[in-house]
């Protein structure tokens, strides 16, 4: 652990944090015996896209913005990258910054992030990652317990964000910072959030809940309740038909667990879920779809599709391959425009 004074240089000031703006990285795995949840970015693939555009490690600390876009002012010349379900707009020039691209801001320029309508969360990366103290192995903000991230809390107007890398020069960061890099390929996750069902495997208690439980989960279109947060996504719809929903002895749970509380209204656990839970788990969202789960917005229709373990493995391989080949193209400096025009579109 290090002292609380960021060594990096302030690069951005928060003019308006939007609804919820917080520092997130890959989270804190393996601390359940301390009651500490993994946390981290709700859409880790979009976090990786934003970071990769600047040559950061995929899980470096970035800002996660939720539902309402934040506004920043550059305190120095700095290249930043945007990903997920928000797009940027630079004041004065009016330049648009699509998700999956980086932009260089001059000192004093403002960047506004706005929802694209594809999902709930946007990510903004800075060179080298955001400089906040590492607490219990991570720079993520544990919002419920109030530690980690920026003073253990969401960002407010006037907060100054420091970068670990030296902005603008590439020094202190890896070599391939490009002032206007585009994520090449179609692997930007927010593009596919809207309508595809979330793929699930039967949960550990699916049999105990009776044959109707999983069937009625996948049969209907649910609506994401506004009473949802990073802990869990609550679903509105007809109640789940389950033969037994009594409390179980507390057991460990994972992100993507579809819990069935006694009222029959399912809860899908998100990244800030408690390490253990006592409700039966009827289904579990596959790893390849967790980023899309993290992008669901209140009011969104939510559908589930049962798949096999082989399907789950294949989906993960396909998602990883698409990401890796896009990353390779980015490193070779092949931009989106080039691919786009090369494809004759």
């Amino acid at each position, binding site marked *: *652990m290090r002292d609380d004074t960021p060594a990096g240089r302030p690069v951005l000031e928060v003019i308006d944090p939007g609804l919820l703006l917080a520092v997130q990285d890959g989270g804190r*795995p*393996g*601390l*359940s*015996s*301390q*009651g*500490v*949840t993994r946390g981290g970015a709700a859409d880790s693939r979009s976090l990786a896209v934003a970071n990769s555009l600047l040559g950061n490690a995929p899980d470096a600390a970035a800002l996660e913005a939720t539902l309402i876009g934040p506004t920043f002012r550059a305190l120095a010349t700095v290249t930043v990258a945007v990903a997920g379900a928000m797009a940027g707009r630079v004041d004065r020039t009016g330049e648009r910054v699509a998700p999956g691209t980086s932009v260089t801001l001059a000192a004093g320029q403002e960047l506004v992030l706005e929802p694209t309508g594809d999902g709930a969360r946007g990510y903004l990366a800075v060179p080298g990652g955001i400089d906040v103290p590492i*607490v*219990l192995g991570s720079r993520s903000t*544990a919002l*419920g*317990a*109030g*530690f*980690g991230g920026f003073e253990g809390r969401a960002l407010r107007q006037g907060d100054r964000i420091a970068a670990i890398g030296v902005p603008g020069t590439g020094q202190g960061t890896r070599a391939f910072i490009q002032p206007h890099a585009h994520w090449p390929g179609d692997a930007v996750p927010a593009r596919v959030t809207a309508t595809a069902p979330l793929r699930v*495997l039967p*949960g*550990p208690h699916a049999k105990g809940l009776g044959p109707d439980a999983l069937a009625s989960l996948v049969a209907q279109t649910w609506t994401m309740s506004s009473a949802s947060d990073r802990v869990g996504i609550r679903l509105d719809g007809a109640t789940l038909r389950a033969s037994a929903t009594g409390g179980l*002895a*507390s*057991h*460990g*749970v*994972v992100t*993507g*667990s579809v819990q069935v509380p006694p009222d029959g209204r399912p809860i899908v656990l998100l990244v800030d879920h*408690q*390490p*253990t*839970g006592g409700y039966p*788990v009827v289904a*579990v*969202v*596959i*790893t390849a779809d967790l980023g899309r789960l993290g992008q669901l917005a209140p009011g969104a229709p939510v559908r589930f599709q049962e798949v096999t*373990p082989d399907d*789950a*493995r294949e989906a*993960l*391989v396909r998602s*990883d391959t698409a990401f890796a080949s896009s990353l390779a193209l980015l490193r070779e400096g092949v931009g989106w425009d080039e691919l786009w025009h090369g494809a004759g579109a």
Partner: protein
Amino acid sequence: MNGPRIVAFGDAAVLVELEQRGVVADARRARRLAAAIDGLRTRDPRLGVPVAAAASVLVPFEPRATDAAAVGALLAPLLDSDDGPDDGAAAGTERVIAVRYGGDDGPDLDAVAMECGLSVDRVIELHAATAYEVLFAGFAPGFAYLGELPAAIRVPRLATPRTRVPAGSVAIAGSMTAIYPQASPGGWRLIGRTDARLFDPAATPPALLRPGDRVRFVPA
């Protein structure tokens, strides 16, 4: 007799469910099994840190490197030792927690005493006379499930949880007791409060009470 059961928990974890025999014994067996799996993990990076709970161990794994069936086969030999004798006293640290019982600090104490048909003093005496063990962690950072509560003072949770329980609240529900480390929503019955700091992210380790520790409460 049913032995332990391994079930897939999505594409990146399996759950080992133990046969339930009693809350303290089950949690000890779960911790012992988790420790054995953790030993395996140091030689096999495909496995994540196991999560021991009331009567089960969740074992995360890297879905790009293995699958539930292979992890199940890997764990099976460890389960044979599950039927070994309960090795009794936990090896953890002993902690003493000073509690202010009742009043504004324990708003449910009077109702608990009524429900149990006991005097308030008797409820306090029973709660404080018992040596508890930290069974497992989970609800929040630093939250420890302690057991086993004396049978005479067992009450159900609130039907409607409170939206805000103050930090340091000492609570009971069913066969367990616990302390809320931070202000949070909660459905357990509040009988007192402590000034002890249950979770400090700057401390090593951050949680004051860890699985296997022994805890006694003393009236402040």
